[in-house]
């Protein structure tokens, strides 16, 4: 009996060692499952089911590379820009990029394939979009909901949150993800023939319509929006911006938003619900906004 316990101990330790080896998690899981079956801890049917789900998990969004996300992001961005005009005001776009890129640089995922880039859209709608490639768009209508730089920082940080939490990528239909990853995996490093490019393009088109449907038409789930709000609070806190800026912005949005609109009115939880949810997660520590920051914000949004 003692010997048996010792053997089990060694097996458990060895399996634990495998699991710490990230590149071989799947192998370790499979091996652990076989051990479990042989020892009679689990049935063979249970073993099969575990093996299948381990493989399914391994074949997940992780297999999309930052480069894939970048090209997906460029196409999603082009679709957004087919529906919205750009607000080509360089003073405002410069300011939004300095603020947004500084926030992104201080975030948990500062390096993405093509970096983070921001652009203001010429629309009264209250709307913002973030592509999986880090292209972030904010409408004039949404900037008008921001009474301060701190408030605008929380808006941009919310969008950065969507990129980092891969909410866009998660809105790709499961079957499409599997299809795309299967094609990508079998391509290898060989040259692509024209039929392969055509096949990849079809899958790519499907991916783009899945994401833009969520982003523009249906919105993400409420939980994704709450997660992005949470990420926003954490990021602005890290830099020393006032997290109350998010509440200030949501209060103005609550007044400005038009019921039945096709913008945040349709795609986001009500501002009051978001405020409640944020307060239920933590106590926000208010930071006083210095005059100089208020002045530069006023100057930057003068034409808004």
């Amino acid at each position, binding site marked *: 009996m003692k*010997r048996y316990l010792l053997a089990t101990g060694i*097996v458990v330790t*060895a399996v634990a*060692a*495998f699991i*710490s*080896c*990230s*590149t*071989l998690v799947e192998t*370790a899981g499979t*091996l652990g499952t076989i051990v479990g079956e*042989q020892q009679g801890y689990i049935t063979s049917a249970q073993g099969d089911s575990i093996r299948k789900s381990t493989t399914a998990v391994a074949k997940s969004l992780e297999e999309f*590379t*930052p*480069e*894939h996300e970048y*090209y*997906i992001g*460029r*196409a999603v*961005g*082009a679709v957004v*820009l*087919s529906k919205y005009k*750009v607000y080509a005001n360089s003073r405002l*776009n410069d300011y939004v990029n*300095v603020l947004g*890129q500084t926030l992104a*640089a*201080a975030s948990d995922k*500062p*390096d*993405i*394939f*093509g*970096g983070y*880039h*921001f*652009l203001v859209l010429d629309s009264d709608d209250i709307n913002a979009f973030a592509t999986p490639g880090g*292209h972030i768009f904010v409408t004039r209508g949404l900037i008008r909901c921001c009474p301060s*730089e701190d408030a605008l920082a929380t808006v941009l940080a919310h969008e950065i949150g969507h990129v980092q939490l891969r909410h866009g990528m998660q809105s790709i239909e499961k079957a499409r993800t599997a299809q795309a990853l299967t094609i*990508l*995996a079998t*391509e*290898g*490093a*060989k040259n*692509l023939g024209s039929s392969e*490019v055509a096949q*990849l*393009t079809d899958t*790519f*088109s499907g991916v*783009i319509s899945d994401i833009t449907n969520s982003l523009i038409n249906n919105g993400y789930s409420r939980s994704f929006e709450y997660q992005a709000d949470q990420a926003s609070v954490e990021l602005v806190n*890290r*830099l020393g911006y006032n997290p109350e800026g998010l509440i200030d912005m949501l209060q103005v949005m609550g007044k400005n938003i038009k019921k039945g609109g096709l913008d945040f009115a349709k795609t986001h939880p009500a501002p009051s619900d978001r405020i409640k949810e944020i307060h239920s997660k933590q106590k926000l520590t208010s*930071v006083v906004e210095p005059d*100089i920051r208020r002045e*530069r914000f006023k100057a930057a949004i003068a034409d808004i």
Partner: protein
Amino acid sequence: MTYIRFMIVGLVLFSVLCVSMHVNAEETMSVQVKESEIRATPSFLGKIVAKVVYGDRVIVSEKNGSWTKVSLKGGGSQGWMHASALTTKRIVLKSGQTNVLTGAGQDELALAGKGFDDQVEASFAKQNKKLDYTWINMMETFKVAPEAMNAFLVQGEVGAPSEGGPQ
């Protein structure tokens, strides 16, 4: 009991192999983003000591939270990179190109396979003629240097970022 003994020996050998692979995998990593920087300190405001591009190989010497101390393979600059810029996968360069920015058409870089790249984008754009990439290309040129970020934070009296930057 024999099969248990056999299995234990197998598992132990396998774990040794696994650990050694793990160490090797950590020694060298690849840059998985178009371009990034090696910095003097583990912070996004750290002074830039070298620039790296997609596919560059670096040797890892130390880890500190989300920051990894690296040196360029083949000698040269040493400093810190954020973990999000690095992958343990080897990036296959198809035609000896080291810079995705200068690569065109057939010079695609492949990361464990090929996929959605500029070739697919060109084919997609051809099928969707109303899509215009002009502003996408334009916005990608908006780049803010670390000095400008630092100046912006100082000027706006934004609280000092936590020491060492994000962890």
